[in-house]
């Protein structure tokens, strides 16, 4: 099943307003700080002697930040996985089917033999299926996979 991810909300997180308060304000006016700032989507930097000791974040900002980091981390892994292929293609001048090379304006002449040679030797790793869903784990032992939970139940057909 294809999963189409919503756009990354990094800009939204970066634009979160930050209000600076000190320890005393947090201690004495906790209710107001939560009501006026955190519940309104404002982050709070808690200072002590003009140095920030920590931040209080609205829950949605924290969740969005965590999700964004996870997705950026995933994208970085994707870039790492695909970069060697793109570099090999660019270096050898072989027209590998690639939207990234196309977007970069790297236009190469199709030569079926060169492409056949490159794909056979390079060792490309499939990361997604045709629809863009993550590729399921490779089946390295089909027999074991198929008969892992074999039972000996007989099929009984009533007449």
């Amino acid at each position, binding site marked *: 099943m294809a999963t189409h991810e919503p756009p990354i909300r990094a800009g939204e997180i970066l634009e979160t307003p930050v209000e600076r308060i000190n320890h005393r304000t947090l201690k004495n006016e906790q209710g107001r700080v939560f009501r006026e700032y955190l519940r309104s989507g404002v982050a709070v930097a808690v200072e002590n002697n003009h140095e920030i000791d920590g931040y209080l974040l609205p829950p949605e900002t924290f969740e969005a930040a965590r999700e964004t980091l996870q997705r950026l981390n995933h*994208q970085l892994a*994707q*870039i790492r*996985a*695909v970069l060697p*292929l*793109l570099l090999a293609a660019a270096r050898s001048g072989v*027209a*590998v*089917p*690639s*939207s*990234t*090379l196309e977007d970069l304006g790297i236009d190469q*002449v*199709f030569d*079926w*033999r060169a*492409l*056949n*040679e490159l*794909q*056979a*030797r*390079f*060792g*490309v*790793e*499939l*990361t*997604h*299926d*045709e629809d*863009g869903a993550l*590729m*399921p784990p*490779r*089946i*390295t*032992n*089909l*027999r074991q996979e198929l008969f892992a939970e074999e039972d000996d139940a007989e099929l009984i057909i009533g007449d």
Partner: protein
Amino acid sequence: MAIEPPAGDAWYLRADDYWVPAEQAGEYPVRQGDLFKGVDLGDGEWFGHLLIHPTCELSKRSVERVQVARVHPLSALPDSKQAAAVTAGFEEKNLQVRPAFAHTFFLAPVPDATIEAFRKPMFVDLRAVALHDRTAYSSPERIGALTHDARVSLIRRELYFRYRLSLPFEEVRRLEAGRIGNDPTFAGPRPEWAEGG
């Protein structure tokens, strides 16, 4: 004949490893993956066709009709972008490496083909299948005899196309070795990876 498996998840062998050389092809009986010339099976003349019927079925008397798939020249594709995707069997899209046109299987040219058109790259359309008389398939009629290793890559691609099973080349070859080992009618040169099976 030592054939280097494709590296990583690559779908296809090097072009030189696809076909049994003409001088040896006579030793190989007709099998799944063998290439035959054009035929008209009811929806117009096909450029060529590939026998995709399971090999172990071909020797059975009860099999009167066999499954075949349509072969096109690579040049039939409208642009080089599609031709590249079919040749590689994968594409990079938005930093994702995906199978491309999973219903196709790239065919390297048959260097010794008696018909010039088959000395150019081709592809099989695994969606375009038909039944044809078993008697139409014999070694003399054959354009190209697929090597055992190239047959493994064909089976692997079909497993992905039909069942979305993603298996490494080595695993499909191991399964094919087991099949060959259990086939009492196996004839012709045995691949070294299926010896002693």
